[in-house]
């Protein structure tokens, strides 16, 4: 098996296919108190992230939109990972997640998000995996312009 075959298998793990086929928390949220749009016009990926925040915690998170398997699975896994977490912890997770894909992977347990670590070997796809997170960040800080990662 070539290195590339190995890298490809790392990138497209079964968890990614699962979340691409059946994205979790994939719905609008009329009761959301925070939301933001993300759009990568060059690849056409587009999503909206919805949040409900109670007492400084993410009480609920969801998203809608369309994109490649990496961006859809990343958004789906993200909503699962942040539910119930304090907002400041979520922001720290975003920084660590970003570092995992682009820089020195921080020494922490990423849980299911670790499956996205394979994106490191595909620099052209980092923008797919991080779009949902940048959109989440914009939702948290109340940014109205759509997030972009390209």
């Amino acid at each position, binding site marked *: 098996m070539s*290195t590339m075959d190995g*890298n490809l298998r790392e990138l497209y793990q079964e968890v990614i296919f699962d979340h691409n086929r059946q994205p979790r928390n994939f719905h609008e949220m009329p009761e959301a108190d925070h939301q933001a749009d993300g759009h990568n016009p060059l690849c*056409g990926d587009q999503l909206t992230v919805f949040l409900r925040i109670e007492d400084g915690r993410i009480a609920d998170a969801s998203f809608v939109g*369309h994109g*490649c398997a*990496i961006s859809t699975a990343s958004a789906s896994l993200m909503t699962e990972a942040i539910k119930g977490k304090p907002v400041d912890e979520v922001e720290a997770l975003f920084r660590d997640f970003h570092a995992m894909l682009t820089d020195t992977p921080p020494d922490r347990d990423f849980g299911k998000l670790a499956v996205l670590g394979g994106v490191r070997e595909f620099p052209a*796809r980092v923008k797919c995996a991080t779009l949902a997170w940048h959109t989440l960040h914009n939702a948290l800080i109340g940014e109205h312009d759509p997030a972009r990662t390209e």
Partner: protein
Amino acid sequence: MNAQSSAARAALAPLRLEVAGDFPILSRTVHGRRLVYLDNGATTQKPETVIEAERTFYRESNANIHRGVHWLSQHATDLYEAGRKTVQRFINAAKAEEVVFTRGTTEAINLVAQSWGRAQLKAGDEILITTMEHHSNIVPWQLLCEQTGAVLKVAPINDAGELELDAFAALLGERTRLVAITHVSNALGTVNPLAGLIEQAHAVGATVLVDGAQAVAHQAVDVQALGCDFYAFSGHKLYGPTGIGALYGRHALLAAMPPWQGGGDMIRTVSFERSTYADVPQRFEAGTPNIAGVVGLAAAIDYVSGIGMASIAVHEHALLEHATATLNGIPGLRLIGTAANKAGILSFMVDGIHPHDLGTILDAEGVAIRAGHHCAMPLMTRFGIPGTARASLGVYNDEADIAALAEAIEKAQHMFGTRQTR
């Protein structure tokens, strides 16, 4: 290469021209696999003769042109102007002076927009383009419209990706000053029926610019037979270097056009009160041009002319038919762009697999394609899709490349669990 024998060979075995050996890069591997290069619509690979021509220029002939009294400068000038004559013959322009060297198609179109367009157009005038244009044949006209108050009109296409001829005719009128249209669609492969369209445009007094970026490498182009007023193309999609291209313009039009960029080489006299400008084409070639690029472009034209544009067209048409049948045999694959008259471009969608995922998986197999909107966002909007995967053919491609493409697509379907049996 003997053109006659290669033409005969193309007729016998049109799926392969046996020229891959002329291209050094095609012997390299990618991810440990043979490189299957199917991204010729983005740029083509370069034959050894083109690489060698640039190298030899810098080793033996390099000097600035049109200014030195020394021998080497005259020699470089001769090579540069010989390149202009090579382009003239290649597109059958009436005069070498009708060929202006530019950085590529994009710069050629911008030159026409900013020189001809700003001098000629006024508020209420109309520019007619089509839905299938590349951004480089949309945005320069939008800029011109902002500057002059002219209005951009867009002729629609049908579901096969063909221009709606009745709608095109209906959009032509006395306000139409310019028709800017692609010869071959970069995203769909559609070949537009230019001769008839140009005749109609001229009948209402409109000037016609043709974007030839995707056409010149795939079929013989005769600007006089087409009857167009401007024709733009790039060297790098014609097996030549990047950063060099040409604008053909009818002499009477070019001669009446004001300069676009100011600088050296484009003037006759300069004083602080007033400068006068050089004749065409130098008037539009301010600054030291890409001299080595012109030498490389001329070598590229010699290369394709050696194979014969007719042989290339026969080969690519046969390979396109073969590839179309092969891809249509893959369940879940849908071709976007099914015009009756097509050049070697296959745009497609695969059910359940985003074009970018497909591009990544194909790349791992050594198969280089383009995934995305192909700089034709309005066209993608027309089809209601974010983008496509696109395989585009060149002289070195053959049935083995198409087989590798099909296998890689089927592998992606297996990975995604979307493989269906028919």
